[in-house]
């Protein structure tokens, strides 16, 4: 991305919503690449999140 190109997330707070269930399950909506990376750090064995982190790495 060039220096003068608009940031697609500019001026907007990024939003991801979580619901933590009593059994420890984490449900998530509107997952951003950054939050996916954090979730993977919390649970490296979670394959569904890993695939989303990998997809998110396509972004520069």
């Amino acid at each position, binding site marked *: 991305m060039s220096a003068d190109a608009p940031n697609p*997330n500019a001026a907007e707070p990024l939003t991801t919503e979580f619901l933590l269930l009593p059994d420890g399950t984490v449900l998530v909506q*509107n*997952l951003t690449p950054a939050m996916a990376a954090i979730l993977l750090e919390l649970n490296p064995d979670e394959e569904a999140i890993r695939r*989303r982190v990998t997809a*998110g790495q396509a972004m520069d």
Partner: protein
Amino acid sequence: MIAPPPAATRAARPARARDNAVRARELLSACRFCAHECGADRRGGPAGLCHAGAEARFFGAQIEVTDELELIPTYAIALSGCDLRCAFCITGAESWNAGAGQAFDAAAIARRARAALDRGARTVMVLGGEPTVHLPAALELVSLLPAEARLVWKTNAHGGPAARELLDGIFDVWLADLKFGNDACARSLARISNYSAIARGNLLWAAGRGELIVRHLLMPGHLECCWKPAAQWLAAALPGVKTNLRGAFWPAWQSRRHPEMRRAVSPAESEAAWAWARDLGLNLIP
């Protein structure tokens, strides 16, 4: 499998979207975009069952990786307002209120979407609420996006014939919900009638015009009445259609008004739902 649109068709998309946006604005005087076909004049402000005016608002525009793997990263643009009133809506505050969020500036959002594509986003997704409600704004946005961009129309599949005509050939992927397996649950949970015929008709239409991905959100206590008939219908009417069975229901918004919806889907329910899908040979995608 449906082939992607030929290059000539794709190249003509921005201009066609611009023309269709003009037509869509004209139709706001007696709006029949959604299947309610209420005919409200929306030009003067909020009107009709969706309570949407002529100008769209939005409550989200960001890069996300929540959706189907083949679509992400996507630049997801969420327009406020919806024609349904799903008690369990995860974005109920914005979806039930077309005035929520910020004024939608198609040119500004298109710039941000183009920047996302330049950075590596695979798709641009227009969603809601329900984007059908804001057809003029959505088409104006498309007219400003690169012709080669892969565009996703995320819909509740409750649009009407007028919307279908204006959307024909505009989006590459229809990501459409099949929420309910029968009309009684649709009436109880989303306040709509004749749901099955409308949603199924729209899915059949979309399947013939581009790439279709069908979503079903598993709902607690609604496997036998909703998922099972929905899955059976998909297997019979749309064999091989990509289907995303989503298990992340949470008891949001007004779910508490329905006793069975006050909890998440249980592991046993989830296992049963997936087993039915496999037994029916559904083409499940992550």
